[in-house]
């Protein structure tokens, strides 16, 4: 009798445990690589590679740990499963996602049954792979294509061509789970925050910038001061010593300093820069870059006391006389540059006078010589 009882208990236990689904039960069906279902007209594979799953970050978990609605089910399940709630464990990330409203599922970036830790070089969110992961949605979705821009930009080149892991990838500037639009004041790329975001890597230049006239204005009214991205492109970031940057730097400065940009383009440095010659001075050569100071500041590169040194960078031997050259002169402006204006005016009068006299002279001569020619020709026919 006790013997029979024991056998019964053992059998019951076995039966009851076999009634609930176990991970191995799932793979009875899902290891079949021909298993599919149709979702909105498309055939979707239901195959799950047991080996990959086993080695994934979640390999130790049971299927029902995530697919909670299947727990306790005894047999085949219906076609529609409830969404997996990653937030059950990853509550911090989920909270950030909810607050930031980035319209993506966890699986869009992290994968499903093949999730690996971000430190694993095969992970879709490993630094080297982040741009590819983001660009499954963001390529061609935006104009201009930020993915193409990033690839040709400095950050992209360093990461993708040189393979340097420390280069900035999407989430370094945009955040991982708290991704917000630039208009959101809490966004890492909001105007007020962008300098801090860049400073995560470019600490030195941002500190220099904070000491500059631009940094000073930024402290008082961030909307009126240039931030990193005012001068440097966000995605197609150039190297500041490259021609592509030097040729366009005038345009960038001119966004605010419109008149100075115009007068620069009317003088030698600006003219040759406009023709693609970068060895001539551009704005930063005389005014500085991150360290720009007001002209009245004794430390400023364009403070009268420092001009000999500033001009001397390109013009060795430049003296005090030399610095009296006016690189932003405008000879059309009689008020500010009367001497240049009158020299110009004298030249205009000289040119107009010469061309007027010889123009008329030549025209009359042509008519007379032409008539003379005709007369002689008809005269010769006699």
């Amino acid at each position, binding site marked *: 009798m006790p013997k029979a009882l024991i056998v019964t208990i053992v059998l019951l236990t076995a039966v009851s445990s076999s009634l609930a689904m176990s991970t191995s039960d799932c793979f009875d069906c899902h290891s079949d690589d021909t298993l599919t279902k149709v979702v909105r007209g498309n055939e979707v594979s239901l195959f799950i590679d047991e080996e990959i799953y086993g080695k994934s970050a979640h390999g130790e978990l049971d299927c029902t740990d995530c697919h909670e609605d299947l727990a306790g089910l005894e047999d085949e399940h219906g076609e529609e499963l409830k969404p997996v709630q990653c937030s059950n464990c990853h509550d911090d990330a989920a909270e950030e996602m909810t607050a930031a409203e980035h319209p993506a599922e966890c699986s869009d970036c992290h994968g499903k049954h093949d999730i690996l830790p971000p430190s694993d070089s095969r992970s879709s969110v490993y630094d080297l792979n982040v741009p590819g992961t983001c660009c499954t949605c963001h390529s061609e979705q935006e104009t201009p294509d930020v993915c193409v821009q990033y690839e040709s930009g400095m950050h992209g080149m360093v990461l993708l061509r040189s393979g340097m892991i420390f280069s900035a990838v999407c989430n370094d500037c945009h955040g991982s789970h708290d991704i917000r639009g630039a208009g959101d004041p809490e966004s890492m790329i909001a105007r007020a925050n962008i300098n801090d975001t860049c400073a995560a890597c470019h600490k030195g230049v941002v500190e220099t910038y904070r000491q500059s006239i631009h940094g000073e204005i930024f402290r008082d009214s961030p909307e009126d001061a240039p931030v990193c991205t005012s001068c440097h492109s966000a995605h197609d970031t150039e190297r500041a010593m490259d021609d592509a940057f030097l040729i366009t730097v005038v345009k960038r400065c001119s966004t605010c300093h419109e008149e100075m940009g115009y007068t620069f*383009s009317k*003088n*030698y440095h600006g*003219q*040759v820069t*406009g*023709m*693609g*010659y970068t*060895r001539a001075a551009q704005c930063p050569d005389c005014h500085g870059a991150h360290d720009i100071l007001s002209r009245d500041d004794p430390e400023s590169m364009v403070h009268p006391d420092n001009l000999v040194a500033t001009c001397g960078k390109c*013009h*060795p*031997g*430049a*003296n005090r*006389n*030399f*610095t*009296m*050259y*006016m690189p932003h*002169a405008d*000879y059309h402006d009689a008020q500010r*540059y009367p*001497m*240049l204006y009158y*020299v*110009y005016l004298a*030249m*205009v009068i*000289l*040119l107009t006078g*010469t*061309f007027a006299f*010889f*123009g008329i*002279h*030549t025209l*009359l*001569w*042509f*008519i*007379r*010589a*032409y008539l*003379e*020619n005709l007369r*002689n020709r008809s005269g010769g026919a006699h």
Partner: protein
Amino acid sequence: MTQYSHSENSGRQERWYLRFNYFHRFLHALIIISFLGLVLTGMPLKYSHTAWAQALARYMGGIGTAGYIHRVCGAITWLYFLLHLIFAAYYILKLRDEPLGKWVFGPNSMVPWIKDLKDVVGHVLWFIGVGERPRFDRFTYWEKFDYLAVFWGVGIIGFSGLTLWFPEFFARFMPGWSFNVAIILHSDEALLAAGFIFTIHFFNTHLRPEKFPLDHVIFTGRISEEEFKHERPLEYERMLQQGKLDKIESTPPTQTSLVWARIVGFIAYGAGLVMILFIIYSALKELH
């Protein structure tokens, strides 16, 4: 009035006289080469905002290379200017014992004098059908103007160009704002020079109906007797009177030299015409 015509029709063997020696022709060749080089490489900078200037600079290998060519041509300009000054000094030394009136205001001098003023008036009156055509000597008033314009032009453009080429050196005794002045002078005087040479000089000397399409005398150095008599009767008669005509009689220009004169001349016309059209186009565009 007899009309000058090219010598092909004349029955007898025509006489030819030497108007320009090798030195004159050599200097003019230097002027052609350097001037075209200067205009082609300099105008793109003056009109740097236009598409044609950008394209022209690109074909020359960028504005940096254009600037290099510009300086080489500038050096050639200084070379012919100095060669001419040496020539003029030699000429003056040779004539220093002659009375002033003979060599400063004489027919071989480039100094404009009362006759030139009379010739201007007389020539313009003849244009409108009043009076006879003035009788010219070795150098007409428009030729003297061409010469003095180049002399003045090389002085202004050449010196301002030098200060802009070596600003660090010139700043030792010139204030920096003089470079601002130098740029205006250099650029507008260059516009005057290019505009004048490519229209007025080309017409007065080569393209007017009597000379069309090209007066080869500056290339071959030779002028036919018929043209000499018609164009410069005073010089012809004086030489005849003084018995010097034989001394300047020369062989006719060879066919090869005439072909070369045309090739060089037409290249210069082409380059000049293109530049003038670009400049006029940009000027009209700026008016809008």
